[in-house]
């Protein structure tokens, strides 16, 4: 016992150092995969408030660009309205089916928000949003902008939330190549904020350069067909029958400011149904 106390006294600085270092590293390795609380992130009230003050100052720099983008989006949406289109086929006999508004139910809702803090050159880049639980944001929801996919909600507090952006190591959004419907997973190598990669695309079909990559919509986080990027390069992976596809992101993560959080109203129903599938061991990489 005396030896033990002497040991502690002798190495007390080192032990204290090890304790603090241990706490810091534990936070690092547990929180980045699954944050148990909103503290220690920008979703907390103090940090969130500081971020929104700082954003109040800097957001005006991007204002004209943001306005232009919103106007473009409005133009596109306006052109989708049936009022502005001429029907090629008029509803004819009794057999033809005419779908009215009542034949649909809403599946996805969009919650508008603003990014108040972001980085793009770290290994894992998280963005902070000025909306939180109060506006209906929940962990795991998708985030898109008018240009394309931005990321997935990582952490939520009452008034703020943190997005795990497409510029994080294990973002894993399910995507597909628009023309051939070839599915894959979106990854980021951690270096270039303009390029990501798509893995798991089998190489028995050739992929055209610059073909669109969109969300697959299978996981229910994003609706199908939200743009992600374009194929910039394909290279064979040695020893595996798959392509390594380099994706040029549609989104410019440096300037993205106004976003929509995607709320899937039917998600719990889909999940409940999928839970009934019996687990079987899948050997997969």
């Amino acid at each position, binding site marked *: 016992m005396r030896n033990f106390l002497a040991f502690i006294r002798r190495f007390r*600085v080192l032990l204290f150092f090890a304790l603090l270092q241990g706490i*810091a590293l534990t*936070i690092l390795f547990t929180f980045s995969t699954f944050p148990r609380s909103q503290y220690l*992130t*920008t979703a907390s009230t103090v940090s969130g408030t500081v971020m929104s003050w700082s954003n109040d100052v800097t957001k005006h720099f991007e204002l004209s660009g943001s306005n232009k983008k919103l106007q473009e989006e409005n133009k596109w949406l306006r052109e989708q309205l049936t009022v502005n289109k001429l029907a090629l086929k008029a509803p004819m006999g009794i057999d033809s089916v005419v779908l009215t508004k009542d034949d649909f139910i809403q599946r996805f809702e969009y919650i508008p928000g603003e990014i108040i803090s972001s980085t793009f050159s770290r290994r894992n880049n*998280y963005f902070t949003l000025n909306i939180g639980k109060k506006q209906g944001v929940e962990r795991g929801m998708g985030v898109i902008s008018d240009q394309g996919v931005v990321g997935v909600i990582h952490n939520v507090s009452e008034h703020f939330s*943190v997005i795990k952006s497409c510029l994080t190591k294990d973002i894993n959004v399910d995507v597909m190549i628009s023309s051939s419907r070839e599915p894959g997973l979106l990854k980021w190598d951690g270096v270039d904020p303009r390029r990501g990669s798509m893995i798991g695309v089998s190489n028995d079909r050739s992929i055209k350069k610059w073909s669109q990559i969109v969300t697959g919509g299978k996981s229910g986080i994003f609706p199908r067909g939200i743009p992600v990027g374009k194929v910039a390069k394909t290279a064979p992976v040695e020893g595996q029958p798959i392509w390594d596809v380099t994706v040029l992101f549609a989104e410019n993560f440096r300037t993205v400011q106004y976003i929509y959080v995607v709320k899937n109203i039917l998600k719990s129903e889909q999940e409940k149904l999928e839970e009934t599938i019996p687990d079987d061991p899948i050997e997969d990489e």
Partner: protein
Amino acid sequence: MNKILLHTLRFALFLIIQVVVLNKVELGAGTLMMIYPLYIMLLPVEINVFLLLFLAFALGISIDSMSNTYGMHASALVLMAYFRPIIFKAFAPRDGYEIDLEVNVHNMGYRWFLRTFGILLLIHHFWFFLIELSRLDEILYVLQKTLLSLPLSFGLCLLIQFLIIRRPARGGV
């Protein structure tokens, strides 16, 4: 009392500058300018080492909580604070440090400051980028980030000392 107030104010100042300004300045190539290690450097030489480590942890975790880095700044700063007494001992002037003299660039001279703070900042930056990437096979990228960020951070730390610390006309701060 006056000293405690001064260091508390500096704590807040370094925190705000780092979080609101420097974290947003992204020059590309993975660089990040970090000036808050200067706060640990400028604490009194005779400070209790436990307090030193604790302050490093507190400042680091505060920056982490405002930049979503989950303990990376805290870990790097605690490591740097641990090495501070060791480096100070190794580079001590011949008759030891003067009591109550702040170890800034004005009081200790460029050579001394370049060596001690340079080494401490190198330790800090290298560790920070190492755990940021947390992969040994990307060690070259870690080195690239470290060596590109280091001169920027160091230069900024020098500049800040000229801006916020008065030149000692009659000693003291």
